C-alpha cells in the first residue's frame, strides 16, 4: 500500500510534468496557427510524433516557459481550473481565447503506468492535431494581436476574480477584468480527453467583436 501511495504521488508530478510540457507546446502552436507572430520565427519540430511549430524567439520562449513553469506547482496540487491563452486585438480587447480546462482525472481504473502514459501521449497528440486544424473553424484574427496567458485557479470562486502570485522569477498578476470578459462569445469545442492521468478539454471562444474590428 505504501509503495502505491508513493506511486500516486509521483504520478501527480509526472502528469503535471506532461501536462505542462504539452501546454508549452500548445501555446507555441496556437501562436503559430493564429499567426500572432511572423511565421518565420517558428521552426518545425516534432512532439508526440506530430509536427509542431515552435518559436525560436528566445524571449518569447522564455515567457512561455516561465508561464508554464509557474502553472506547474498548481497543476501538481490540482488547483488549476483552466489555462487560457487569450488573444487580444490591437486595442487590447480579447477577441479569442483558447481554454484548456483541466479537471481532476478519474483515477479509479487499474492500469499500468506505462499504459496510462501511453494513452496520455496519444490523447495529447490528438489535441495537437486538433489544434493544428482549428483555424478551419475560426475566423481569422485582425492585425496586431497580442496574447497573454491566464490561469484560472480553483481557489477563486468566480470567473472574474483570479489569482496572482509572485513566483520566483515570474510574477503572476491578477488579470484585468476586461481581459477575461468576452461578450456574446461563441464557443468552439476542440477536444476533450478523459484519461486516468488527465482530464482536460480544449475549446476556443471567439468574440464577435473580432469581426467588427476588421
Amino acid at each position, binding site marked *: 500500500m505504501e509503495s502505491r501511495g508513493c506511486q500516486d504521488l509521483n504520478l501527480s508530478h509526472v502528469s503535471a510534468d506532461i501536462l505542462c510540457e504539452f501546454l508549452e507546446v500548445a501555446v507555441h502552436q496556437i501562436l503559430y496557427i493564429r499567426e500572432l507572430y511572423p511565421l518565420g520565427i517558428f521552426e518545425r519540430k516534432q512532439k508526440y510524433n506530430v509536427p509542431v511549430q515552435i518559436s525560436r524567439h528566445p524571449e518569447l520562449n522564455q515567457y512561455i516557459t516561465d508561464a508554464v513553469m509557474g502553472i506547474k506547482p498548481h497543476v501538481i496540487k490540482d488547483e488549476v481550473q483552466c489555462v487560457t491563452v487569450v488573444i487580444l486585438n490591437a486595442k487590447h480587447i480579447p477577441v479569442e481565447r483558447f481554454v484548456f480546462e483541466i479537471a481532476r482525472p*478519474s483515477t479509479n481504473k487499474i492500469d499500468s503506468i506505462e499504459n496510462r502514459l501511453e494513452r496520455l501521449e496519444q490523447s495529447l497528440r490528438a489535441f495537437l492535431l486538433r489544434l493544428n486544424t482549428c483555424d478551419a473553424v475560426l475566423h481569422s484574427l485582425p492585425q496586431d494581436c497580442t496574447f497573454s496567458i491566464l490561469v484560472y485557479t480553483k481557489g477563486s470562486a468566480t470567473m472574474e476574480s483570479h489569482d496572482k502570485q509572485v513566483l520566483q522569477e515570474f510574477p503572476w498578476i491578477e488579470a484585468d477584468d476586461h481581459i477575461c470578459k468576452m461578450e456574446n462569445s461563441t*464557443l468552439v469545442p476542440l477536444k476533450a480527453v478523459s484519461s486516468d492521468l488527465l482530464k482536460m478539454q480544449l475549446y476556443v471562444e471567439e468574440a464577435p467583436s473580432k469581426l467588427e474590428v476588421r
Partner: protein
Amino acid sequence: MHSRGSSNIKNKSEHEDQSHGGYMSEKVRKLEEQFRGDAPTNKEKSGTSTDIFRGVTIHVNGYTDPSSDELKRLMTIHGGMYQHYYSVSRVTHIIATNLPYAKLRQLKTEKIVKPDWITNSIEAGRLLPSLPYELYTDRSSRQNQAVLQFSKGPGVKPDAPSIPAPIPKAAPEKGGSDDVSQEQEDDEGSTLSKADKSLAAVDANVQGRANRSFGIATAGDSNFLSEFYSNSRLHYISTWGAECKAYVNALQSNGDATFPGRQRLLAIMKEGKSQRQAKKCELGVVGTEDDDRDWSEDAMIDPKESEHRATGSSKTTKGKEKMRRIMHIDMDCFFVSVGLIKRPDLVDKPVAVTHSKGQSGMSEHRQEISQFEREYYEKKYGSEAARQNHKEDQSNSSSDAKVTGTGTAGGASSSSSSGKPKETFHSMAEIASCNYVARKAGVKNGMFMGRAKSLCPELQTIPYDFDGYKRVSQKLYDIVASYTHDIEAVSCDEMFVDISGILRDTKASAEEFVQMLRKEIKDQTQCNASAGIASNILLARMATRVAKPNGQFIVEPHAADAFIRTQPVKDLPGVGRSTTRKMETLDIKTCADLQQLSLGAVQKEFGQKTGQLLYGFCRGLDDRPIRQEQERKSVSAEVNYGIRFKQESDSEKFITELAAEVHKRLTAIKMLARTITIKLKVRHPDAPKETSKFMGHGICEDKARSCTLGQATEDVQVIQKESKNLLKELQVPAVDMRGVGIQLSKLSSSAQAGTLPSKSITAFMTKPKPADIAPDPVESTHRDTDQSTSLSSASTAPSGSKPKVRTMLNFVSKRRADAETSADAEVSAVDVIKDSTSKTPRKKRKSILPPLPFIPGPKDLQSSRLSGHLALPSPSQIDMSVLQELPKDLQEQILESYRGQKSKHSASKDTSEPSTSSGITDSSRWDQGVVGSVPPRILEELMQDDPNQGTSSLGVVEALPSFSQIDPSCLEALPAELQEELRSAYRGKQTQAHHELEPEKETRKMETRPETASPAKESPGKSPFKIRKRGRPRKGSPSSKANNPKRPRWQMGIQQIITRIQTPPKLSSGDGRQAEEARLPSDSIPQHLRNEESNPQEERNKIEEELDGMEREIEEEDVNLCGAVHLWDVKVLLKEWIASTDDPVDEDIGFIVQYLRELILDKNLEMVDHVMRSLVRSVKRGGSSPWLEAVDMVIARVQHTLGQIYSAHLKMAPSS
C-alpha cells in the same frame, strides 16, 4: 579544579567534570592538597628529590608493575602530580601495562604509557621521551597529527592558573623536556603572523589541551568557525589577494599620480639615449596623469586593432605606438623564494615549502585508505590522471589545505627537533611551492610530501614564512605602483599592469622597462620575478609561462598569432581538468588544434559561454580590460576540513554559524543576496569513514541545493533559516558530511533597497512556520469552524457563557494550529488581499523562505492609501499582538487599508463555497487569545473590516471539522443550544462529507471516526443545507429538471458543492447570537445572499429529493445516455430514437438535455458538440417538424446552460 565555573570550556572532559558535580571537584581538590602535603614528607623519607616530572600528571589505570601507590610516591618525590580520578584536562599521561580496547577507545585522546617510563626516567635522572614507552604506538601517529587549535575563548584564561600545570606556561624553558611542550613551543614560534603575544600564550596553553583532547568533530565546537577563519593562516594568505586589490584601489583613488619609478626610468632613458629622444621625454614628464588618461582612452579602441593583428591581417608597425601593452608579472615560486631569503644555503638545492618534514610512511591504516582513494580516482579518471587528481582532491578545497597548514606545522617541526626519525609521519601534506631545482626532479606544487620525497629524496623543506610573504608582496606592489596605477591585482605575487602609458611617456621599449623593473624587484626583495608582455591579458599571461623562471618574454603583436598557436590548450585560462580531458579525447593539444574547430563546434563541445571564450582564447583574442575594481558575483564560505558531525543537531548548529560567517562577509561588501546555495561534500558511500588525510574530506560526492528568495536579503536570520532548510532538504546524514559551504549569489547593492522598516513589519506580517501541506477542504472547514466560533464568542460573551466558549475556542484554536501550519507559513505578503485569490499564491512558497514579503516602504504606503490598494496580507495573517504594539497611526493605516478592500471583496465573493473558504477564514484565524486582549475598538474594527463576516456568520455552521476531530467531552461542555447546533450541522455534513474529501483523506477519516459520530447519522432528512452535488440524477426521475435550477451569473463553480445558507429556526428566536448578527452592518452581507435566503425551505426540499436519489450513485460513473458512453454508441442511439418516432416525448427531450448538460459539467464540450451536430444532422435528414422544434429546444437549453457556465454559446453550424 578550583573553579567550578569552568563551564566556558566546552571540552568533553570538562563536561565530565561537571557531571561529577561539586562533590567530585571538591574531592579531587582535597586529594591534590593531600598529595602536596605528602610530598615534602615523602621527599624527606627518600632523601632524594628531583623535578624530573614537573608538569607531568599521571593517572594509573589497572594493574602496574610498580603498584599505583608506588608510582604515586615516586611522583611526589620527583615533582610530578598524581590523579586518582582520570580527567582529560589534568592528566598528561596514563600509566598502564594493559588496557582493554573499550577503555582504550574511551581514553583515545590520552598518552598511555608503560610504567617503565617513570622508573626509567628516574634512573636516567631526566624525563625520557614517553614515546618509546607508549602502550599503543599506532595511536601515537595520530596523536602527532596536531589538531586545529581552537581556543575555547576567554573562559580559558582565568582557568589556566588553577590547572595543576601540566603545561608549563613558559614553554621555551622546558624545551626538550617532553614533546608536548615542544610542540607548543614550535607552534608558538610559528604563530607569528598575527596573534599577539598574550594571545599566543593562551593559544599554546589551549593547544596543549587540544592535543590531548584530540579534537575530533571539532566542527561541532561552538567556536569552530571563528577559530577556523582566524587561525587558518593560509586562509589569511588567500585574503591577501583581496588586500592587494584594495591597496591598488586605494592607490588609484588617491589620485596622487607621481610615479617616482617612472621618473627614474625617464632619467635613465634620458641619459642613455640620444638627444632626439630626450626632447620628447620632456613632454612626457609634465602631465603624466593627463597623458595617462588620453592613453587609456586609446586603449579602449586598441583591442580591436590588436585583434586584427593577432588574426593575421597584415599590420605593420604603424599601430605599434598606439598598442595596448599589458604586462603580467609573477614572482617565481614565491613562497620558496621568500623562504630562501633566510636560507641562502639552500638556493641551489631542491626546496619545497610545506608544513611536513615528509618522512616517508604513514600508518598502515592510512596507507590503506590512501590506496583506496587512489584507486577510486584511477577508476574514475583513468590511471594517467589519477595521481594528479588524487592530489587535487586533497588540495582542491583551499580551506582543507589551509587548516592542515596550521595544524600540522607544530607536529612536523616537533618531530624534527626531538629528532626521532622513526616517528611515523603521514605524508599527506601538500607542497605549497617548490623551486625550479625541485621541479626538475618532477616535484610539483600541490604534490603530497610523501610522493615528492620519493621523486626527489634530497628535497629540503622549509616552513611557511608568512611575514616574509607579506613583506615581499608589499614591496612588489610598491615598486610597480611607482610606475603606474593601472594595475589589476591577481594575488599577492601576481598582477597585470597596463604599461602602455609608461612606455609612451618614457619612450622606453618594453624590453628595457621590464628589465629595469625586474631588476628593481630583485634588488629590493631578493626574489625573482618573471614577466610577460603582450597586447592583452591572455597573451601576457601565456607569455609569462614562457618567461619563467626569472625571465621575460614579449609577444610582439605580429608574432602573437604564431605564439598562441604553439601554446598548449591546457594553459589557457578556463581550461581545467575536465576540459583538458575532453580536449584530449578530441585530440586537441595546442591552440592551433583548437583553432581548427569552428565556433559552433567549440560551443557544442564546451558549452555556449566557455566555447565562446575558448574560441577567442585559442586565437589570442582577449578583450578583457585591466579591471580595476571587480564586481563580486557571490559570497561564500566553505569548510571542508574537520567536518565530523556526530549528530544532526551538530550540523544544524554548524550551518547556522557558517551562515553567520557568510552573512558577515556579505555585509562587509554591503550587498544583498537573493540566492542561497548550500554545498555539501558527502562521504562517498564506498569510502571509508576515515580519510587518508587527517580530518580531510576524502572521496566525496558533492551535493548542492539552492533556493532563490523573493527578495534580496541581508538578514542573517533569513540566511540561517534558509540554509537550515536546504540542509534538511538534502537529507544527508550528519555523520557523512565532510564539507559544508554556503554561497550567496545574485547579489545586489544594499543601497538599492530601503530595508529599514521591513524588519519589524515583516515579523509582524507573517508567522514564519514552514509547512508543506496545502490547504485542502478539510482545513478550510477547520478554519470556518474557527470563524464560527470566533463569531459566536463575540456574540455569546455578553450573555455570560464566556468560560465555556473559551474552552471551545481553545479546542478550535488547537485544531486551527494544524491548518495554520500550512496556510500561514506560505503566505506571502505580496498578495493583494483578495481573499478569493489568497489561496493559490501561498502554495508556491512551500520550501522557500516564508517571510521576505514585499513590504511597502513609507512611500508605497502613502500612495497605496490613496488608491486603497495597500499590499497587505489578508487580515488573518496579522498577529494582533504585534498590531497592538504598532504606533497608532500605523495601526490605523493598516486597518484602513483593510477596510478599503472590503467593498471589493463582497463584490467578487461567491457566497458559500466551502472549498474556496480561504477567503472566509479571515477573522477566524486570528489568534483567539490575542483577540481577547486586543482593545475592543480595534477588534471591532477588524471584525467589521472582515468582508466575509456577513457571509460567514450565516454560513458558519456548516463549515466544521470532521466530526471525528471533535473532542466529545469538549462538545458536552458547550451550552445545550450550541451542542444542538453543532450536531445538526454535522448531520448535514455526513451526507456531503465523502464527496468533499479527497479519497485518501476520506479513508483516513473513516478510520479515525469514532462512534460518537453515530448520533449525527441517525437523523438524515433534516439537513439544513442545500446541496448541489455532482453526479447524475436517476434516469427518468421527475426531479431531473429541477436539477438545474437557474443560477445567477455569479455562481460559476457549478461543479462544486454549493451550500446555501439556512439559519436554524431556533436561533432566530432571538438569542444573543442572532442579536449580534442583527447588529452587523448590513452592507457586509452580499445582496444576492440575502435574496437566496428568502426561500430556503423550497430549495432545501429540492435538494433533499436530489440527495435521496443520488446518494448511493457512484460518483465516477461515466456520463452516458442510456448506457451509451462513446460517441458512436450515442449517435446510433440518437438515430434509433429519431427513427422510432415522429413526435418526441418531452421526457425524452429532457433526457437528452440532461445528458448534454452532464457532458458540459463533465468538461467534455467536444462530445457536446459532436452530439449536437449529430442530432441536428439526423433530424434534418429525418425531417419532421416536431423533431425540429424539439432539437431547437434542446439547443436552446444547452446553450442556456453553456451561457451560465461559460458565458458563451456553442458555435453552431449556420444552417441550424
